């Protein structure tokens, strides 16, 4: 589909919950323009959206880089938040450290990371307490 890797970069604003997800909407539009299959687009969009929401809830924002290749689409989400103390626990459905005010906004049910794993073909989490977290997700085309 693409002869070379196409790259998109987005800054995710950590101060504005209402704008969270705007980058995912944009990626969805661009992938549609590039002619990807609806199922691939949906999986990328949902995984990235969950990641974006996590960044805003837990890490005061961050950056997202998307690399669109011939065989796969890679999303790299990096933040300088507090880091994830126990990744294994965070991957469990229903486990969340989100505050009640986040739940009142419809998120923080502890489904974000498990959902990101579910919708992607590969997911890696690199995290360091007090330094930040990078989540790398891949969806095969």
């Amino acid at each position, binding site marked *: 589909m693409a002869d070379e890797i196409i790259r998109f970069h987005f800054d995710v604003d950590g101060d504005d*919950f*209402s*704008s*969270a*997800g*705007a980058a*995912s*909407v944009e990626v*969805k539009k661009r992938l549609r323009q590039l002619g990807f299959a*609806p199922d691939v687009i*949906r999986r990328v*969009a*949902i995984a990235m*959206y*969950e990641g974006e*929401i996590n960044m805003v809830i837990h890490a005061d924002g961050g950056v997202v880089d998307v690399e669109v290749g011939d065989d796969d689409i890679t999303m790299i989400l990096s933040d300088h938040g507090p880091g994830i103390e126990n990744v294994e626990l965070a991957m469990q*459905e229903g486990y969340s450290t989100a505050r009640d005010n986040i*739940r009142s*906004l*419809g*998120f*923080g*049910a*502890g*489904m*974000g990371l*498990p*959902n990101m794993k*579910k919708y992607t073909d590969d997911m890696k989490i690199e995290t360091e307490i007090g330094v930040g977290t990078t989540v790398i997700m891949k969806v095969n085309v």
Partner: protein
Amino acid sequence: MKIGEIQNLLEAHVLCGEDKLDCQVYSACSSDMMSDVLAFVKDQAVLLTGLVNPQVIRTAEMMDMKCVVFVRKKVPGEDIIELARDSGIVLMRSDLRMFEACGILYSAGLKGHVKGGN
């Protein structure tokens, strides 16, 4: 079921997407937790919710939904309506409570899950 029938059954007021009321939909879901919608919903075209914020529209867009119904007399702001308009999502609001709204639609034939499509 046509989206227009949902409007009639729920005595709902359409906020945007009037041109898409003839669109057919086959299944719906309801939740105030967008986390759960993203995790458990598959191919449902209609979302009923009492939660009002822009993330409702973004969640619906991510899930390729066609229609969002705000229940319990909730009134979305213009920013939310604009977001739905940009996303091509039909937005409506109803005075009914969630349980009643879901019951009416289910009784009229709208299902929770339809194999292979929305």
